[in-house]
């Protein structure tokens, strides 16, 4: 256990800040390219939220409104949240579980790679894909759903959802440490899909049964979606500080769990 701390604490000793930045950048660049070329990732992570949005936001319901907000706008917030969570969970957990379980992470750990670079690359990549998804929803909404909003609002929504990638990337890291290479995708779905449903990402929150609405309050996606909905004037007018606090606390818990997994791995053998 103590070794892990030692490894982490003296990683920066000999690289110049410029070199360190270069390593982090390369790690992120290749992580991004790796996922971009991985059809399993792009197909499921990008296409599902976009497909749902096109179907429920543009083909059906396009002229309707929920509490004064047009459905195409409302659904950018909820399917945006849905997409961000998927991109983040799959972007971190699936790769980590596979790298860990099938020996690749050991090759990296045996090299002088700064250990954090590996994780940071995954988080950055998840964030980039999250941004892509939200931008795609915007493009569709503006082009085909008559979505109009001030530039500031647009930037705020995009920023909030991109930042929302962080707690779920952290959750992905925790999951990646406690699932195997084969079980990771199924496990992610088992958590991701029910959690999204219960948080009102598929069916607008007020249409959910009361019991589900009560459960939702404990689910991080609910809090992210409420932040996003708040920006487009469709939130439930709860304090956004509370939402941020819940997400921040959730992030810390997940990072704590991931750290336990990281330390456990130092002493375990794979492959």
């Amino acid at each position, binding site marked *: 256990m103590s070794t892990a701390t030692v490894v982490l604490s003296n990683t920066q000793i000999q690289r110049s800040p410029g070199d360190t930045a270069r390593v982090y950048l*390369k790690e992120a660049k290749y992580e991004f390219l790796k996922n971009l070329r991985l059809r399993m990732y792009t197909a499921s992570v990008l296409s599902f939220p976009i497909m749902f949005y096109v179907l429920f936001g543009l083909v059906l319901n396009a002229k309707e409104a929920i509490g004064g907000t047009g459905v195409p706008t409302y659904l950018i917030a909820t399917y945006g949240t849905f997409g961000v969570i998927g991109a983040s969970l799959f972007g971190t957990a699936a790769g980590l579980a596979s790298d860990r379980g099938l020996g690749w992470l*050991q090759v990296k*750990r045996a090299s002088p790679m700064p250990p954090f670079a590996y994780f940071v690359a995954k988080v950055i990549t998840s964030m980039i894909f999250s941004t892509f998804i939200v931008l795609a929803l915007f493009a569709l909404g503006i082009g085909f759903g008559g979505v109009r909003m001030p530039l500031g609002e647009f930037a705020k929504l995009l920023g909030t959802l991109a930042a929302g990638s962080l707690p779920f990337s952290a959750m992905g890291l925790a999951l990646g440490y406690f699932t195997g290479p084969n079980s990771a995708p199924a496990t992610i779905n088992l958590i991701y899909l029910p959690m999204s449903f219960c948080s009102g990402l598929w069916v607008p929150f007020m249409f959910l049964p009361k019991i589900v609405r009560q459960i939702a309050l404990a689910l991080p996606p609910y809090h992210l979606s409420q932040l996003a909905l708040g920006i487009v004037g469709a939130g439930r007018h709860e304090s956004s500080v509370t939402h941020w606090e819940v997400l921040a606390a959730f992030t810390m818990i997940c990072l704590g769990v991931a750290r336990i997994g990281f330390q456990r791995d130092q002493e375990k053998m794979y492959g």
Partner: protein
Amino acid sequence: MLATIERTRPAETATSNLVVASLEGVNKNYGSVKALRSVDFRVRAGELVALLGPNGAGKTTAVKLLLGLLQPNSGRVRVFGGDPTNPENRMKTGAMLQVGRVPETLRVREHIDLFSSYYQKPMALAEVVAAAGLEKLQDRKFGDLSGGQKQRVLFALSICGDPDMLFLDEPTVGLDVESRRMLWDEIRRMVGRGKTVLLTTHYLQEADALADRVAVINQGEIVAQGTPAEIKAKTAGKRIRCITNLSMSVLRRIPGVSDVKEDREAVELHMIEAESVLRELLSMDDGLSGLEVTSAGLEEAFLALTQDTGTNGNPQN
């Protein structure tokens, strides 16, 4: 056959006394399984040492300990005089491990580019690619490569940082003869440039062809260490096969006999010098038949070393 392989380099010239990597009294357990048992093992600067043993002998565990990927239960692991997890040491080492899955959507060139960026003075991409014989495969995605080609990429990643010490865990497993020879040449070239190499293998031929020194490991214990010639001398010798009425216990008492095995209707005896044993055998059993005398190669030496050497005379296979 194995003994005739030409050695490209005298063992003594490149070695010095500086210990680069060592396991000192190391024990490593996985739960109740003892993977390594009080292992003492040293690699000196400029040496090419082969850790030779059957599957599951503890070779990979030894390598992972030296790479700081595992911690010993007791004993000391030293690399360049320090802890193997020390990042400064990692700058000076390169590792080739057995990997179940490498990210498949990255190109060969990209994998090398990324790993090179981890090191302070990496080799030029062209040099790495040439050394690993990947010139024509640079732009291929890793997932599109054959098993042998993948192995060469992993080798490329281990040398791209131009490290002083290379750890190669079963580097040639799954390679065809030509690729294996090419990798051998490349490994020799690394040693020629003053690098230190530890490789594990279960190919005797490989250890014999490459190594200055061989450590034979079995069931977590180093059972023999020395030059390939010494290893052979230690157990090699002659083998007598015959059909006889003499009991196993009688055979085992014949002076000079180191091992006796039943082999279908016949028995097989191992000894250093066959002549005295033959005289004894023939005088004890008039009806002895099917006599064959052969010299044991490294293969036999290896088997003799790695089989259960306990007194129950019941070799494990």
